[in-house]
């Protein structure tokens, strides 16, 4: 496999950070949706 140039290394780092942030955001959103749905069910008296 070819060695990455400094520029390619930098772009790869940026892509990795972007993927990490997006996965983190997705997890946070799913958590938020779960809490809101559970909260609504509890408020309406559903099990």
């Amino acid at each position, binding site marked *: 496999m070819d060695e*990455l140039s400094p*520029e*390619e290394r930098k*772009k*790869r780092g*940026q*892509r990795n*950070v*972007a993927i990490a942030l997006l996965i983190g955001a*997705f997890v946070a*959103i*799913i958590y*938020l*949706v779960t809490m*809101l*749905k559970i909260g*609504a069910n509890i408020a309406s008296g559903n099990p």
Partner: protein
Amino acid sequence: MNGAVTRPLKELPQQASHASPWDYFALLKPRVMSLVIFTALVGMVAAVSTGAGIHPLLAAISLLAIAVGAGASGALNMWWDADIDALMARTIGRPIPRGLVPAPEAAGFGGILSALSVALLALASNYVAAGLLAFTIFFYLVIYSMWLKRLTPQNIVIGGAAGALPPVVGWAAISGSAPIEAWILFGIIFLWTPPHFWALALYREGDYARAGVPMMPVVKGERSTKRQIFIYAVILAFAGAAPYFVGMAGPFYLAVASALGAWFVWLSFGVLRSEPGEKELPKRLFGFSILYLFAIFAAILIEDLWVIYG
């Protein structure tokens, strides 16, 4: 007809290691996405004005899911059309033809985002909205991009349904249903699409001819295209007033839709009467068509917000 120039995707330059996150974001067609967000938001607010409602945060997450779904279909479209994008001045700067993102990566990116956006919409709102979003992505990729785009000059007439669905998805995300009012918003965008894209095709005709895409001016000629633009503009001007007559919009909307609809017809008439090869008037009509759609949906939004908070 199927005269589109095609070439194996592996012949396209591929330098994945040069792609920045912004190149992947560009795959989502951000400008198209912004129009989808806006029209879906109008559908959502219109649904709220009828008494339906979900938690505001869930509504915001639903809108995000719709936006990501629209972006995902854009990435899948760029994957499928990479060969012809490389031949057109308008699209040659996209990440795949530039060799920044390999086409298979764009397909994977679009596919994963499609699945996540549909799942997220199902969780945040309901299955009706999620089903409609899935259908929109399927329609844009399979029916429009894969089947119609390179087959018939009616490509964007039928394919326009994909771009017209976001307000229906937005409405369903709030209410769990898609009533006739939502389909009226669909109808306005559906009728708006042909004159919008044919105006673009009139001044980008060389692009489409080079790529072998059978757009109306390439196949039927300028004269026929201008006539059809005018006919669609007249129908659109009347359809644009429909929300008032079914009681989903008020006099403010009617005034905006009537004035802008009349101006749309007038500009289309100018295009109809223009000399062969004239590019400036179609360009002006294309620019105005964007303003038209934005303004009449903004008018609905303002009136509905007035109903909700006024």
